[in-house]
């Protein structure tokens, strides 16, 4: 049992537990905070899976920016505590459990043995790549060469999101 594996299982477990707690808390604030825990745990899982750069990005962007935005809005709308529970009744619970379970079964039923041999890269390619170029360059080089166009489009998307958010949230246009 290498350290990686242990790391993986511990933090995966934390992620699962905190996710379950996230969806079941009465207070939206608690849900948000449990989600933050989940994101941190997932970041650690990414590190265990040899995606260190992405793990850092997760903390920076997801947990750091997006969740802050969520908490900001929750505070703004004064939803922190109190008020009636927004969980659905027993019927809703049953449906949710049923469909969630069905979905999980379906997802696991998909070929779980991994991708077919034809498209698999030789063992250790990724590791070699990362040693050669370093973590960041491994991701950055394809980003600016093969995936340049999606990159540019994403920047436009962000611009559009900024403009949209400003316009939608204004009190008076």
């Amino acid at each position, binding site marked *: 049992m290498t350290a990686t594996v242990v790391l993986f299982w511990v933090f995966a477990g934390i992620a699962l537990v905190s996710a379950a707690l996230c969806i079941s808390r009465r207070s939206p604030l608690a849900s948000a905070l449990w989600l933050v825990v989940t994101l941190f745990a997932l970041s650690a899982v990414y590190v265990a899976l040899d995606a260190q750069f992405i793990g850092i990005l997760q903390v920076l962007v997801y947990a750091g920016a997006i969740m802050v935005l969520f908490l900001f809005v929750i505070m703004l709308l004064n939803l922190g505590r109190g008020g009636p529970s927004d969980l*659905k009744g027993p019927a*809703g619970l049953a*449906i949710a459990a049923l*469909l969630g379970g*069905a*979905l999980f079964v*379906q*997802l696991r*039923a*998909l070929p779980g043995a991994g991708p077919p041999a034809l498209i698999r890269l030789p063992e250790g390619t990724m590791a070699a790549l990362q040693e050669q170029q370093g973590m960041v360059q491994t991701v950055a080089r394809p980003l600016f060469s093969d995936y340049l166009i999606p990159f540019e489009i994403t920047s436009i998307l962000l611009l559009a999101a900024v403009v949209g958010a400003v316009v939608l949230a204004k009190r008076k246009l």
Partner: protein
Amino acid sequence: MTGHPTDLLWLVPALPLAGFLVNGTLALTRPGAKAAVSVVGVGVLAAAFGVAAWIVAGMGHGEAAPEILRYWTWMPVGTLSVDVAFQLDQLSAVMLLVVTGVGALIHLFSVGYMRADAGYARYFAYLNLFVFFMLVLVLGANFPLLFVGWEGVGLCSYLLIGFWFGEKVNADAGKKAFIVNRIGDVGFLAAMLLMWRHLGALDFATVFERAPATLALGGTAVTAITLFLFQGCAGKSAQIPLYTWLPDAMQGPTPVSALIHAATMVTAGVYLVARTNVLFAMAPVSSAVVAGVGALTALFAATIALKQWDIKRVLAYSTVSQLGYMFLGVGTGAYAAGIFHLATHAFFKALLFLGSGSVIHAMHHALHAAHTHEDPQDMRNMGGLRRHLPWTFALMWIATLAIAGIPPFSGFFSKDEILAAAFARGHDAPLWYLFWGAGAVAALLTAFYMTRMMLYTFHGPNRTGERAEPHLHEAPWVMTGPLVVLGLLSLVGGVLNLPALVGGGQWLHHWLGPVTAGAAGFLPETHLEPGTELLLIGVAVGIALVGIGAAVRLLKPADLVPARLARPETGIGRLLWRKWYVDELYDTVIVRPLMWISRNLLWRFLDQGVVDGAGVNGAARLSRGLGWIGSRLQTGDVGLYVVVFVIGVVVVLRAVGS
């Protein structure tokens, strides 16, 4: 005139068609132009007769091959090709002359009879159209073209019977004629289909050539074909059981009754059997059926005529009876005799009808002048008219003697030949003695009821009433002229086919020889000893004299009272007067159940219930229901949407994963 006379054959039907178009246009635009209509209407018929006579005169004697003139291809369908083609042979020549000749005379008569009618132009248009279709019928060289003419005359019959359609009873009579004819026409169509199936052709030449070679003698195929053809004949020529329309057809104008329901349209069935003589000769069963039905109809109709009071009804039943004789003739294989009787009957029956038209015309005037509402056609209101209508009286007696079978009038020769043929056939098939017997009894009754008609109408005291009687007068020359011509023909028409016994040459029989040659091979040889033949003639004349004498003796015109005072009939008389209740029987057994089925089963259940309810409305309701389901799903509740969404995802994953 260049070229062959038969090049102008197309002109004969084209002239009446042109007359129809002109008169029809006048009827729609200038119905008051009676002079123009008269000239066109009668002129085209006279011209057609002239052309026909010239063409027939140009036909050589004993020309074996019929001349077929193809005009254009009508229906080229797969292996079958039906052309618009006319066939000129001896049989069609006889029919041509009868139709155009008697037709021209009746058109002339109509000028006087229909003078005061508002629908004058329409009348002549329809009458011309009728002659056109009748000519197509007799000239057609194949079954479909004949059928076109067949249906066309049926249509014109409907239009003319219901000419005064403002009164419901006239319109009903027209409908009855058309519908009963239709029942017969189904048989005609079935026969055509069978013919095509077994013989692969529908034109006369090919069919009559292939039939003896392909079909078994007396087999099911040829018997079925001929029986179906006879079904068509029974409808068109008013034989049992499809005769009920003819007496009702008397609702139409009297010249129409003369032309259509005596001389021409109703004889189309006889023409058809004579034309297809090869097929009927090959099917002895069918021939026996034809002869049997003919004999039975002759007798049956004669019994009904004994007790009818409407002068036209008497003549109508007389026509049905005489048509029975014609079918007896062609059923026995004596095709020439049947056609002979067709021609002589056209003469004397047209004369009788036109004469009755003259009488009704006079009665109408008289009753109108006296402002009474008696029935001008009821014989009980007539009597002693010989003093007022002498020409009509004399000419109608000539016709009566002809129809009764008194020599030397034409009817004697034709009727006698038919009965002799039946008797001769009885030697091989005793059944024919029965047919001869029925024919003989019918002859007795014919003489009786015709004499009755003459006695009640023209003899004895007058019952029209004192105010009306002075207004009775003879018809104008335009009406009596044709009567004279027809009277002459009824008198001397017998020369067409004088029997050998009296030194005649059997001219018509020999002239039609090439047409009936095909059948001759299949018919049994019949021969009558001269002694037997003379005996039969004696019996026939005797029967006629007994009939006339009995009528004169037993019937007393002086005992009659006008119709409004007459007591209803009782007993047998009532049964005969009410036509053996056949119409009532048909009504109960056929008409009412059909109406019930139509109304309740087909209309209420099928049309309204199934098609409208389940089909049309049901589809609409289904759409509405589906729409309702759809709209219930649009709750605006996002939660529900998400649930449905996820269900969809699960389903898709299941489908993809498996």
